[in-house]
């Protein structure tokens, strides 16, 4: 019943989309994390002029579908071509690649900033006091005490976000990018064998996500050697 020869034929083709999938995921997770950290730290100060716009950004990007965000950035901003050309940003919004990266990064930055905000607030106040008693400056306290603890604390939630992003890259196929899902669609229009192609593509995503989960679990175990291992 299962045609293994067909799988052997399509899997290399699907895998040719893997570099793009990994690129989209890697770049947007990286940019998104940097942004998320900035946003989370900016909210620690409780300056209303700073916190309010960030909260709105987070609410908007968490409250609307990623697909709408991608369309808004790619097709929606494309409408303002003359303006974008005038400010020299057209090269960015002309390319579906960069539009996908921008949408994915902003989306994950919104979710990530909430995770990191919670993790930073979860660091016991006594540790910060102890650090200042030891004569550490604010930036040193942040770099040496607060961030390492907060980031370790955030690993489980952040691993969920990373997996959601890997899955989110499949939406890039809708703005014509030929990553794994895009190639899968192309294969289907050639072969009309939707089930086999999607099962093979699904297996590729599962493998990526399984690898990421295992790596992050290992990282967490390594960073918390004192925890009893069940």
């Amino acid at each position, binding site marked *: 019943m299962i045609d293994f020869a067909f799988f052997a034929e399509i899997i290399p083709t699907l895998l040719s989309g893997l570099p793009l999938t990994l690129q989209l995921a890697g770049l947007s997770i990286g940019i998104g994390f940097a942004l998320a950290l900035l946003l989370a730290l900016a909210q620690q100060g409780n300056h209303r002029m700073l916190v309010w716009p960030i909260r709105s950004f987070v*609410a*908007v990007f*968490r*409250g*609307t*579908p*990623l*697909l*709408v*965000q991608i*369309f*808004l950035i790619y*097709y*929606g*901003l*494309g*409408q*303002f071509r003359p303006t974008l050309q005038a400010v020299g940003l057209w090269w960015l919004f002309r390319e579906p690649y960069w539009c996908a990266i921008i949408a994915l990064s902003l989306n994950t930055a919104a979710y990530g900033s909430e995770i990191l905000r919670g993790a930073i607030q979860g660091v016991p106040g006594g540790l910060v006091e102890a650090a200042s008693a030891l004569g550490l400056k604010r930036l040193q306290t942040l770099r040496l005490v607060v961030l390492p603890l907060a980031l370790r604390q955030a690993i489980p939630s952040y691993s969920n976000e990373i*997996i959601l992003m890997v*899955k*989110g*890259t*499949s*939406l890039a*196929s*809708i703005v014509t990018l030929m990553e794994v*899902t895009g190639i*899968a*669609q192309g294969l*289907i229009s050639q072969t*009309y064998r*939707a*089930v086999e192609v*999607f*099962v093979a*593509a*699904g297996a590729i*995503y*599962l493998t990526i*996500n*399984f690898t990421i989960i295992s790596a992050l679990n290992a990282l967490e175990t390594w960073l918390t050697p004192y925890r009893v291992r069940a």
Partner: protein
Amino acid sequence: MTDTLHILSVGKGGWGGALLLAAGVTFALSVLGFLLGALFGAVAAGGRLSTRALPSWVAKGYGTVFRGVPDLLTIYLLYYGGSIALTEIGKFFGSTGFFGLPTFATGVLAIGIISGAYQAEVYRGAYLAVDLGQFEAGKALGLSRFQLLRLVIVPQLMRHALPGLGNVWQLVLKDSALISVIGLVELMRQSQIGAGSMREPFVFYIAAATLYFLIAAVTGSVFRYGEARAWRGMVHA
């Protein structure tokens, strides 16, 4: 600006009515998908909690696959796979045409399958959070297994499950936009149609984003109200 208002107006020549109607389709699709997901999720949670190997493995596999594979792929797989199966059945009975699955029902099924995988984890966690003494007390009162679940466990389990279910609901609402790829005219698809025919993509996608945001905000407050109600009279940290 007046142009924009005209495009989005509800009256003649405006797209407002069509967008609101499509938002209604999105809402109906999400609610039905979420409810179907509750059924799948409850069954899968039961499987995960079972001490027998087979149900436990099946439930675990279901959760791993549908939480690990992009939702877009699941939707394509169901739609194309189902349509191909339907067409083959048609061929068997001597038809030559292509049969597409009904898009609304396929959308509900897809959202049900995906959200069920997430809901299963929510229900499992909530079940484990119910105090063991409650099970013992129920047994001591002579309740049957079904009565114990319906009268004692589920009402208490919902307290713990509601926040997680609220998250899954938000996920479902946003996932419903993906159903546009199989041609169902819900909010996302209607905005695409409007954006294409009026050549005003920005206006239409901003309008769509606003409507999604409003639905998410309003329904989110319903969940918060439900949570407050579920905990009424209880002291909790």
